[in-house]
C-alpha cells in the first residue's frame, strides 16, 4: 500500500495509545496484517482497535479532502490515484469488520459464554452479538420451543455452544516474523509431536493451534 502522507492530513503522524508514533503508511501496513490474520484464522482474534480507529479517521479525512478539492474545481492528475487509494483502504477496513462480524454470527453462543472470547469483542460488537443472539433465540422460541411439550420447552444454551465452533486444528499458511524455537507440531496421525525451530522470514503450512499465541503477540502472521 502506498504512503498516503502526501495528501493533506490533520497531522502527518498518527499515534495510538501506546504513544508509539506511526506514519500513515505503517498504520496501513499494520491494518493489512490484522486483516489477513483475521481472514485466515479460524477463530476470532483480539481486535486491532487503535489501528482501526486511526484508519477510519484517515479514510474520513481523505474523503473530505478529495470532496473539497473536487468542489473547488481543483482537479489534478493525482486525484484518481488518491481516490483509488481511498477505495482500497476502505475495502480493507470493511472486509476486516465484515470478517469479524461473520465469525461472531457463526459462533455467538460460545463467544458470549466464555470470558476469554468475550474480551475479544469491541464494545459495539458486543452489543451486536447480544442483540443477534437474542433475536435468534426469539425465533427459536416462537417457531419451535413454545409448541413443544414439557421440559423440551427450554433452550439449553450450553448445547448451543458447539454450534459453529472454530476448528483450531485447521491448517494455515504462516509467515514467521520472529525466530521460533521449540515449537511443538503434532504429526498428522496425531500420536506424536515434532519439536521444531522456525526461522524468521520463512513460510510454513501448519495447524493454527501451534501458533495461536504467536499470532496474538505479532511474532507470526498469516498469509
Amino acid at each position: 500500500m502506498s504512503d498516503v502522507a502526501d495528501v493533506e492530513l490533520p497531522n502527518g503522524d498518527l499515534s495510538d495509545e501506546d504513544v508509539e508514533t506511526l506514519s500513515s503508511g505503517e498504520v496501513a501496513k499494520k491494518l493489512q496484517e490484522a486483516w489477513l490474520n483475521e481472514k485466515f484464522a479460524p477463530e476470532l482474534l483480539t481486535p486491532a482497535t487503535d489501528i482501526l480507529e486511526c484508519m477510519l479517521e484517515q479514510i474520513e479525512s481523505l474523503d473530505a479532502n478529495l470532496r473539497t478539492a473536487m468542489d473547488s474545481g481543483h482537479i489534478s492528475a493525482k486525484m484518481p490515484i488518491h481516490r483509488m487509494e481511498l477505495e482500497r483502504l476502505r475495502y480493507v477496513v470493511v472486509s476486516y469488520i465484515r470478517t469479524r462480524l461473520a465469525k461472531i454470527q457463526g459462533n455467538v453462543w460460545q463467544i458470549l459464554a466464555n470470558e476469554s472470547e468475550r474480551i475479544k469483542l469491541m464494545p459495539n460488537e458486543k452489543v451486536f452479538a447480544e442483540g443477534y443472539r437474542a433475536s435468534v433465540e426469539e425465533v427459536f422460541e416462537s417457531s419451535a420451543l413454545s409448541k413443544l411439550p414439557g421440559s423440551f420447552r427450554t433452550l439449553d444454551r450450553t448445547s448451543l455452544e458447539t454450534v459453529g465452533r472454530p476448528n483450531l486444528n485447521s491448517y494455515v499458511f504462516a509467515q514467521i516474523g520472529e525466530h521460533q524455537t521449540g515449537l511443538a507440531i503434532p504429526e498428522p496421525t496425531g500420536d506424536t509431536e515434532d519439536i521444531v525451530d522456525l526461522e524468521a522470514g520463512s513460510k510454513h503450512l501448519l495447524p493454527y493451534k501451534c501458533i495461536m499465541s504467536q499470532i496474538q503477540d505479532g511474532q507470526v502472521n498469516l498469509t
Partner: protein
Amino acid sequence: MYCEKCMELIKELERSGEDKLPHYNEELVRQTVVEMVQLYSANQEDVTRMTEGEEERVTSVQFRHACLERNKQCLLAYVYARLRRVGEMRWVLGSVLNTEVKQCMSEGELRWLAQYNRLLAKYMQSIGSGVDLTGSMEPPRSLYIAVRAMEDYGTIETDSGEVVEIKKDCQYLLLRSQVEHLIRLGVLKHIES
C-alpha cells in the same frame, strides 16, 4: 418410524442448495411437533406405570426420549439454518428483500430480518459515518466501471451530484462504489472489455 419428519426438514434444506431458501414448511414442522407431543405423553404414562412397579418400561422411555431430543435438535437446526440463509440474502440483496423471497419466509423469519436490519444499522452507525459494510464486497480493481443496464431503473444520483437516468440497454461509465449494489441486484451488468 419416529423422527422421519424432522429428518425430512433437514433433507429439504440440503437438497435446495446452500444459498436457496425453500418455502417454510409449516406443515412438516407441525407434524414434528405433533409427534413430539405424542411421544411425550406416552413417556409420561410409562413413567407413572414404572413408579407403580413396571420397571421394564424403562427402555421404551429412553428410546422415546432419544427421539424427542432428535426431533428438537432437527427443529432448531432447521430454524437456525434458514435464519442464516435469510441473513446471507440480506447481505447480497440489501435490506429490503423482494416479494418472491418474502413469500418463502415464515412470520418469525420476517420479524427476525427486521430486527437484524436494525442491529446492523446500529452497528454501522457506531463505527462512524460513511462506512457502508455492504459496499466494497470485492477488492476494487478500478475506479470506474463500464456497465449496461438490464432494465429501466429510474434515476440515481452520483457522488458528484450528477443525476443519471438508468434506461434499459444503455451503457454507462460510473464510479464503482456508486453502482456496486445495483450490479449485485442485477439491475446493471458489468461489461468486461
